[in-house]
């Protein structure tokens, strides 16, 4: 059963992937096996994903990330929260981020 994203917890990039920024794209490269469905896949983030990813630093709880994005984009917390939890759940399910407590 997959773990669920908790806004009170801190998340950071996993050591099982290498995250690179190339030509404005965030490229997530699996380092170990079992990250992708196939063994030759890389991953990129869409525009929403890039905005969120830049704040997933493994130091602050997710709720603080939501508040910061809501302020920056002048959008309701609920809308932002949906995107943040959506992305992080996808990344957690793929072992691209880890729960840092």
């Amino acid at each position, binding site marked *: 059963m997959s773990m669920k994203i908790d806004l009170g917890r801190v998340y950071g990039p996993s050591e099982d992937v290498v995250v690179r920024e190339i030509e404005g794209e965030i490229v997530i490269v699996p380092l170990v*096996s079992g990250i992708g469905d196939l063994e030759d*896949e*890389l991953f990129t983030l869409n525009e929403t994903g890039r905005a969120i990813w830049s704040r997933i630093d493994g130091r602050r709880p997710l709720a603080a990330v939501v508040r910061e994005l809501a302020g920056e984009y002048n959008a309701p917390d609920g809308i932002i929260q949906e995107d943040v939890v959506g992305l992080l759940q996808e990344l957690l399910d793929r072992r691209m981020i880890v729960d840092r407590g």
Partner: protein
Amino acid sequence: MTGPGKPYVRKVPSGRDGMWASAGPPLARLDIELTERCNNDCVHCSVNLPAGDAAARAREWPAASWKGLLGEAAELGCLVVRLTGGEPLVREDFEEIYLHARRLGMRVMLFTNATLVTERLARLFRDVPPLEAVEVSVYGMAAETYEAVTRAPGSFAAFRRGLGLLGDQGVPFVVKGAVLPSTRREMDELEAWSARITGSPARPSSAMLFDLRSRRDGAKNPLIAGLRIGGDEFVRIARRHGEAAVDEWRDFCARSGGPRGDRLFTCLASGGSASVDPYGRLQYCLGLRHPDTVTDLAAGSLREAVTGFLPRVRAMRSTNPAYLERCGRCFLKGLCEQCPAKSWAEYGTLDTPVEYFCGVAHAQAIAAGLLEPGEKAWAVVDGKERVERVERRRGS
């Protein structure tokens, strides 16, 4: 938030089409020839030196230099590095270099004969996958035929053992053949075996048009030249599975644009790749060792070489009347293997028409209905019209 919402994460499989919104990074792919040494002594090889060649080994860049270069390549956006040779696994520091590339976030294409694959290495590829199928050269389906090519006793058993280790660990690999006198009768067997062991119906590619020695150390060239098949034989082999290959040749000609004119580097129009030899010299491709097209990385950075030196090479033009008269006006550009690297290996120049490849391309064009026997492609005034006319006739 201004983004489009789900899906937030996009998978980019091998091939990478459409990955970049821009033209792509300055260096998308780096080919590294880790060594010219090889534990096989293949009759057709254009590179190999003996595995124990101490002089070559002493000149090779150490792992620390390769790691520094890989770091520079990563800063230039390089996502794919090809490790080749020679046989790259003869280097005792292969694992260190491989892991460094992967930890920098690069996919690794490995070209190997698989004879030196160990259980430890196969497990490493399982745990830290290269993200590209390992490409294994196969020189025969039995010890007798295989070792007639490799001239290394015991190499067939070593190759089968290495391939078995990759298979046991679930490491994806593809096999590639070579059409040589000893292997020509084994092509069907190779294809059936490849489908069985890789689980893919895709037919393995087979090298047929062998290059001469790119170092121009010519003692072996008569042997290599003697192994080459002619154009008619090339066409016959290509037609083994029907006319798809011949149809593809016509498509190449239709899509390849106009003749070269005085341009030399038609295969490198978009840039984005570079090669480095075992001694730290950068060149466009591994076969192109003409001194005017090689720069020593000890004298400057990879960035300078990629953004300054290589564009100057790419801009080089031919002044050779024979090239301008023939290659410069030829509409078979999409078929012919003529390029500065082939010209260099054959004649020591960048722009001499290579008679062997010219002959093969003409045989292909005759098979595709684009030329009459005896006709010269460069004498066709309007190649585009010729291709369109043939395609119209076929369509009707």
